[in-house]
């Protein structure tokens, strides 16, 4: 397979290989959940932990070492040679990605998303990833109800796990 020099992505991956990431600033990001739900949760799972599934073998966003701009770039442009799609309308066509156009990509061309995101939505998704997912450990009841709401049984398994004294154990 053709090897390509993808500066920003390569930098991101180098970061990913570095030592454990210090816990970043928290707060914010909840208003950014909509874009994540629409475009990311299918493959990266509701908690961003990734892993296998019908959406492919997705990386963990909880363990990512990328910063916000690097996440935004991957959302815009996808990850060449993998199943991670590009989400910016016109990427590799009217807008270069990793300094490349479609013709340069060959078999490394990432797939096109089923739902394009606007630049502001991409920013919001990147913000959600770095503020609400990155650096987090195992998913919690609080995160689950933030995603699915409190009226469903979707988070009951976390209630059981955390016991009757869990933060929001009652319906």
């Amino acid at each position, binding site marked *: 397979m053709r090897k390509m020099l993808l500066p920003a992505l390569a930098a991101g991956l180098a970061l990913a290989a570095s030592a454990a990431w210090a816990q970043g600033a928290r707060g914010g990001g909840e208003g950014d959940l909509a874009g994540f739900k629409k475009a990311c949760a299918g493959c990266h799972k509701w908690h961003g932990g990734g892993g296998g599934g*019908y959406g492919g073998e997705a990386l963990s966003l909880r363990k990512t070492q990328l910063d916000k701009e690097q996440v935004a770039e991957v959302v815009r442009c996808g990850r060449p040679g993998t199943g991670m799609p590009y989400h910016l309308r016109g990427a590799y066509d009217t807008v270069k990605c990793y300094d490349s156009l479609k013709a340069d990509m060959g078999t490394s061309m990432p797939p096109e998303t089923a739902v394009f995101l606007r630049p502001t939505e991409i920013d919001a998704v990147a913000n959600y990833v770095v503020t609400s997912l990155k650096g987090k450990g195992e998913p919690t009841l609080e995160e689950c109800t933030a995603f699915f709401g409190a009226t469903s049984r979707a988070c009951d398994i976390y209630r059981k796990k955390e016991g009757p004294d869990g933060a929001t154990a009652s319906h």
Partner: protein
Amino acid sequence: MTTSRTARRILAATSLAALTTGALPAPLARAADGVTQERLLNADKEEGNWIHHHKNFAGHRYATLTQINKDNVKNLKVAWTLHLGGIEGGGIWSHGGLEGTPIVENGMMYVTDGWGSVYKIDTRGGEGKLIWKMDPKTDREWAGAVACCGVNNRGVALWGDLVVSHTLDGRLIATNKETGQVAWQRQIADPDKGETITGAPLIVKGLAISGVGGAEYGIRGWIAATDLKTEKEVWRTHTIPGKGEPGYETWKGPNNAAVSGGGSTWVTGTYDPDTDTIVWGVGNPGPDWDNAYRPGDNLYTDSTLALDATTGKIKWHFQHTPNDPYDYDSVSENLLVDVGGRKLAIEADRNGFGYAVDRTTGQFVWATPFVKKVTWTKGINPDTGKPFEYDPTKDVQRYNPAATPSAENKNADFCPGNMGGKNWPPTAYNPDLQYWYIPVIESCNRVTHETMTTASLKPREFFTGGGPTNPFRITGSVTAIDVKTGKVAGKHETQFPLLGGMLATPDLVFTGEPSGGVMALDAKSLDKLWEFRTGGGVNAPPMTFTVDGKQYLAILVGLGGAWDKWFIDSTPELKNIQTGSMLYVFAL
């Protein structure tokens, strides 16, 4: 055959006459509508009705109606349409879709949407009038977050004065046929364990037989029977043997892999009254693509199971893909056909081969590829029914190693792709021609392998050992197999995979495409004789019925399911298909 068809026509004419009097007092009409085992056994004699999910207990999806035939089908037009609901999202799904087969009894139609709402529609008078809608208030987040393959429901079954259906969140619901009120319901599957239900129930002697989905989430599959009178469970047979049961020895290694072995049962099976046997297909082992996690043949995954209908006891099994590393479910319906003096069960497997086994013993008879391209194996050994590369002395099968995902082959391309071959959309069988029509996904795809450990197994989490991407274009076909010879008799190629299923009539076969076309083909030549563009995506099987003495064709239109979320890259034009939920009914 000719004699029995004539007899059927006479009987049908009688029932039609009774119907068209229109002057029956209401209570009498209701009594006549009660569905009994006798009526289910003789469903084919009710020529204008469609009272089984698969039309008859044998799963033929063959209607003897001939008003619409190859000479006039070109004149088929939309008679009426009805917008349905259920397109709301939930869990990981942005919208629901329609996969159901309408049931029609004496002019009353029963259909479901993806979230399990049941609609009763009066089809008399050349239009569709909604009589009632039963909304089961499915917990969409709870179920939708662990539904691997869409917000789906494939329809209802009838018994007595009840309409019997399932919900994605694991319930069996009995609804009063007249009022639309829920008579009773029980939870039979547990989404907390990753279990969901998408199939229609099969009703045998007053027992509602239910299957389960969830092999991608580490479930241990089962088939369960609920007595519709006592509302209690009569039997539940696990498709993965427990400790001490036969077949448990086919789950080896240190991972206690049987507890999360998959083996889901999400497609409605068939029933042979001569032997009181239910024949039901079993899905893939889990984790899907890391077969080294679960050394051994992994019974009864990827198998056809024959169960005693009264007790649920396993009578025989036939396994298609031992120690499956591809996600080659065998959930497909087994059609029960009598050909050449043999009693056969025939199944179009996701692995690309159509199989015939003796349905009294489970003994292999023949297998033939129905897809254009198979790369995972050289073929099926005609002596054993197993893939040529299958080595019973090995615990982990590699088949064609270059096409098999494994720790040593992290990215594997194989054909057919993991959706098949043939997925849930049902086949149909013309008993006069002895032709079997398969809705085919002509496909290859790529799977990236992920090594699983017991720590990877978490409730309500995908447990798949990797995942697919779709760098190759996928098309489809209607492929006919002559069951007398076991050979392919014809192939009608389509631009898109066939995600909807088949209907056979004496000289026609009907199907639909995810790009929106509903079409009729000549039953022998498979030449296209008629097509109508619905403007939506077809993801459901067609059926036919009569009302007021006139024949109609009905099909649900609304693309949902796994395809438009997970496999769309292989059919990029389908990204233009919009969400919808509509019933189309055609007539001359």
